[in-house]
């Protein structure tokens, strides 16, 4: 009622209990900020599937069986699910077969546990990264926490992850100069980015020195001579791409117009007469009024249609790229059966790698193209072109070996 509203409006950021500098437990922060805490804890809720996203952790390998062969020989081909709320960040990692069938490094912890900054301070950056995950897992208790994004003294947004600071510094960007609006994206870009483990110390690194688009990233890996794994069927030196949300968003129109991750994934909601950022991070399809209507003066149905149209187009091209990749793999396998060497197949293998990492960039990006619709389609067009060229190159090798 009106009385209450007026009272609430007067009440702003009243700190009941100072928060310790090393406090990780969201509940402790929640004493002062119950509205944010309450919504943050809702990331535990399974609100169901959206056409391509949502919080139901279904098996992607079952839904898109081509993935099993596209990633043949890599742990992703054994276990990979649709991701869900921040509540599960630590436990989903601990329970994936990807940490069981492979001895993963501590580097994995960077983005999945609030304990990471403390362990880094304790062990040192390189040491933390290469210590086996299984040696450190006992010490992890908190997945995502307020401390990941906020300074406990001032509640300002802050960057807590070294890999992001290193990558931005290498690109000549001084994070201490970041505007408030930029910080509303940067806090997410600590984790929602493509990464690799550099060198023997498995140092978590973002491949951004040439730029953020996939052509730049591909060139970076090629110049470095880096591979994530060797393809079990074709023998190509492969790159796996993971969740490049920040990179894909960067090429889109929302980024060009200064629209941050938090604008859509943490829109303001009214609690009584106070407006707070919705800390229930989730699919905006679950929440289109708040997420979009402040900027787009159209109906929820039209907004949903916009998102799903862009996603359907992306999905159609993803399936075409998968078909082309499987054909390329088949052709390379056939060439090997006909006696082709790695040298004979050099061009086919290079094209297989290029096609696969481009498909992966769109496939692993969690918006199914929405964050940058035309760029997603461009990348898939190139993926298809390279995959078909890999197939042609392999078949030419086979034909030559059979004496034509």
């Amino acid at each position, binding site marked *: *009622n*009106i009385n209450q*509203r007026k009272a609430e*409006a007067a009440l702003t950021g009243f700190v009941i209990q100072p928060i310790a500098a090393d406090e990780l437990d969201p509940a402790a922060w929640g004493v002062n900020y119950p509205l944010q805490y309450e919504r943050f804890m809702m990331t535990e809720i399974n609100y169901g599937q959206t056409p391509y996203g949502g919080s139901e952790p279904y098996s992607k390998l079952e839904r898109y069986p081509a993935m099993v062969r596209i990633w043949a020989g890599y742990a992703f081909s054994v276990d990979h699910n649709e991701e869900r709320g921040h509540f599960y960040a630590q436990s989903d990692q601990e329970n994936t077969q990807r940490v069981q069938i492979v001895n993963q490094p501590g580097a994995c912890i960077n983005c999945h546990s609030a304990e990471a900054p403390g362990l880094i301070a304790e062990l040192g950056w390189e040491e933390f990264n290469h210590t086996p995950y299984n040696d450190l897992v006992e010490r992890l208790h908190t997945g995502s926490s307020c401390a990941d994004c906020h300074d406990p003294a001032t509640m300002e947004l802050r960057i807590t992850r070294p890999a992001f600071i290193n990558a931005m510094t290498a690109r000549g960007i001084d994070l201490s100069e970041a505007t408030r609006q930029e910080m509303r994206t940067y806090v997410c870009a600590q984790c929602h980015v493509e990464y690799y483990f550099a060198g023997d110390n498995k140092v978590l690194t973002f491949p951004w020195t040439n730029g953020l688009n996939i052509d730049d990233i591909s060139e970076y890996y090629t110049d470095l001579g880096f591979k994530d794994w060797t393809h079990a069927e074709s023998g190509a030196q492969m790159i796996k791409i993971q969740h490049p949300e920040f990179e894909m968003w960067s090429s889109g129109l929302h980024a060009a117009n200064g629209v941050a991750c938090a604008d859509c994934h943490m829109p303001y*909601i*009214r609690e009584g*007469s106070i407006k707070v950022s919705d800390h229930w991070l989730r699919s905006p399809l679950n929440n289109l*009024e*708040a997420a979009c*209507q*402040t900027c787009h*003066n159209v109906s929820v149905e039209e907004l949903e249609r916009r998102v799903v149209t862009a996603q359907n187009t992306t999905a159609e091209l993803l399936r075409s790229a998968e078909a082309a990749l499987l054909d390329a793999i088949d052709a390379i396998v056939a060439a090997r059966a006909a006696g082709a060497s790695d040298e004979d197949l050099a061009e086919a293998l290079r094209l297989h790698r290029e096609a696969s990492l481009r498909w992966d960039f769109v496939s692993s990006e969690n918006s199914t193209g929405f964050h940058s619709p035309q760029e997603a389609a461009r990348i898939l067009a190139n993926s298809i072109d390279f995959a078909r060229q890999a197939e042609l190159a392999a078949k030419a090798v086979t034909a030559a070996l059979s004496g034509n």
Partner: protein
Amino acid sequence: MTVPSSPAPLSWRILILMAGLGILFGLGAFTFTYAEGTSYISNNPETCVNCHIMRPQFSAWVKGSHHNVATCNDCHTPHDFFGKWFVKGVNGFNHSRAFTSGDFPEPIQITDFNRNVALNNCRDCHASLVSQVVLGGQHEELDCLACHNGVGHDD
């Protein structure tokens, strides 16, 4: 895209009476005075902002192109006497009820009814400028807001 038609020329006299009664009895005198229902009677934009809910529009209007030439009521109530008081009555009732119950969409969306009120006011003030294009030979009047959505307050 559909271009909304203008509000039917109703019998303002009767309706204003009904709306007035609506405010008094429908709302209850307490809500009316406490929620500054009287705001609807004044022409001063500050009074709309007695409801904090109206603040984004107010802040944007202050920075907007119409700040010096049109107040809230110049756009949001009809320019003829009876229409003006009728619309004030209807909106006063609706908004006070919504504010009290808290039951309204966020972000707030203008109703078709009030959109038409604003549209007619654009055409009224800018009549000579748009005299050729407003019909351009067509039967349907031009929808100014298709292009000038944010003129009042681009919030």
